[in-house]
């Protein structure tokens, strides 16, 4: 599926930047005695290959992307952020409540984001929370 030539070159630029970051970070790694390469060798080789691949993508950008990629709109981005907030919520509340309750809350948030029927979401979240609590807190004593 054809796509904008500038947009399709963005991944190449991202990978070039990642390669540059890796190379810059690996410059300070120590060498082996007698000047042989040490822990920096592998990251440097990877950075070089990634830079080459990035240039390849910029030079000949692939026109094949996920067909549904074109359909991502503001609503979709909001829902993705909602899904991420479910994971963040788990991190925030897990220290204070049981793992099952925290997972149930994640399920509830994601269900609301997905606009499922609220009654069904509540039942599913409670069931998932209880199952996770029984398995992880009860059986495995996490």
């Amino acid at each position, binding site marked *: 599926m054809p796509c904008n030539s500038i947009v399709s070159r963005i991944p190449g630029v991202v990978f070039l930047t990642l390669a540059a970051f890796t190379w810059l970070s690996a410059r300070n790694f120590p060498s082996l005695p007698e000047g042989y390469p040490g822990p920096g060798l592998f990251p440097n080789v*990877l950075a070089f290959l990634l830079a080459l691949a990035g240039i390849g993508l910029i030079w000949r950008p692939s026109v*094949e992307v996920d067909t549904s990629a074109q359909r991502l709109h503001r609503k*979709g981005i909001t829902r993705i952020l909602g899904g991420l907030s479910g*994971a963040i919520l788990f991190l925030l509340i897990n220290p204070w409540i049981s793992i099952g309750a925290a997972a149930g809350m994640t399920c509830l948030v994601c*269900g609301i984001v997905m606009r*499922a029927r609220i009654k069904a979401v509540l039942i599913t979240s409670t069931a998932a929370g209880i199952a996770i609590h029984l398995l992880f807190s009860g059986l495995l004593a996490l």
Partner: protein
Amino acid sequence: MTLVSWEGFLALIAGALYGALFGAVPGLTATLAVALFIPIAFFLDAAIALPAIIAISSVAIYAGDVGSAIARIPGTPASAAYADELHNLSRSRGALYGLGISALGSSVGGILGTLVLAGGALALATLAAMFSSFEYFWIAVLGLTAGVFASGRHLLKGFISLLIGLLLSTVGIDPTLGYPRFHFGNPAFLGGLDYIAVMIGLFGFSEVLYHMGAGTKSAPAAHASIHRRALNNFYAAPLKLIRKARKLVVRSSLLGIFVGFLPGAGADIGAWVACSLEKISAKRQKNEERVVLAGVSSNNAAVASAWIPALSLGLPGDTVTAMVLGVFMMKGVTPGPLLFQEQMPLIWMLFGAFLIANILLLPTVGLLTARIARTALRLPFSLLLPVIAATCVTGAYAINNNPLDVGVMALMGVVALMLRRGGFPLAQVVLGMVLGPILEQHFMVSAIKSNWSPLSFFERPVALILMGACVATVILGIAAHKRRLTGSDEGN
């Protein structure tokens, strides 16, 4: 002669159910299942503890595919090689059919692995002992090469995914000097990124975010009409496929056995090479069933063959057999060549346990897990996705009881979402992460011990054979890639 006592048989059944539970839940692994069982094994007789461990590991490896079928979350790095195909198959033709192929393919692979374990353990262990860092380096290169050519139409994108995985593997202490790399001042990163958390994020959480972004309409339709004929879908149809593709099953199982007995990541490389060979040699564009069959038979054949160096040399083939060696020590049994002369009843009991686990337990427990997966797939997508999200965060947290793993999992979910939208394959990232440390460690060890002589990598006969296999994979892969491109151009 009794192969397995009735107590051992009960232990096999209990172990299979326990292994199925651990394999099917993301974040819980066969290794964790065996690790939690070890304190119990301490109080049990070897004739009960060892069959239970065999059943746990055999069934947990298969049950790892349940996550792939429902939510595209592979249970092991090896199953990442065919996770996409299994998920698509379970969606299009039903979970019973997809997991039927997985269970029965695993069963056949496991039986072949057991037969080789029974017949040639000592000979194969001697071969494994001939492998030095040079051969391990080349076998890691072979796995990576196969991974690139398994990536479909865009080799460059597959290569980039692999490089990202290799880069992720450099986080933490380096294997040569013990120097900390890319830890960003956080001591929690010194041990490296946990690949299970990365896998859950890459496959499971990214699936949640992907469908959230596209809305519920993007939900792939689960197969409905096939539900009525459970036994046919789980047993008859996959068996027919296995009979039709018997050469593929035998070839993949042998590959799993012969690469799987190498200590380290043998099993993962075996499954990847088997899937890659099938993708390269495929005449048709759609060969999902055959790719899954190749992967699962290789995967489970390697479960048995990982016991070869453990039993005959006392060297662990993987983490599970490392714990098995601990059980041997607890019970006063010394593994090694003498084990085959002095403890033959124990050896026969192990073979019997492997055969029962593969012939009887995998197909029966497999049907049970497949029915549960089928029920899960029947849930409306707007409810299934939140449950998958909850399972992902819990699974990532449960690995080390560490909130950082949940953060890594979420970050990987976002990275995977972007990669997926750009058409980059995800499984290659996992392959790079798993093989990266092996590749780097064996390259550095080989280079240092040969005083950085490049020729030393080509001097040993087995290393040369493996290098030849890498070259052959590249040539065959390029030819297949050209054929694929020509075919799709003609199709267009």
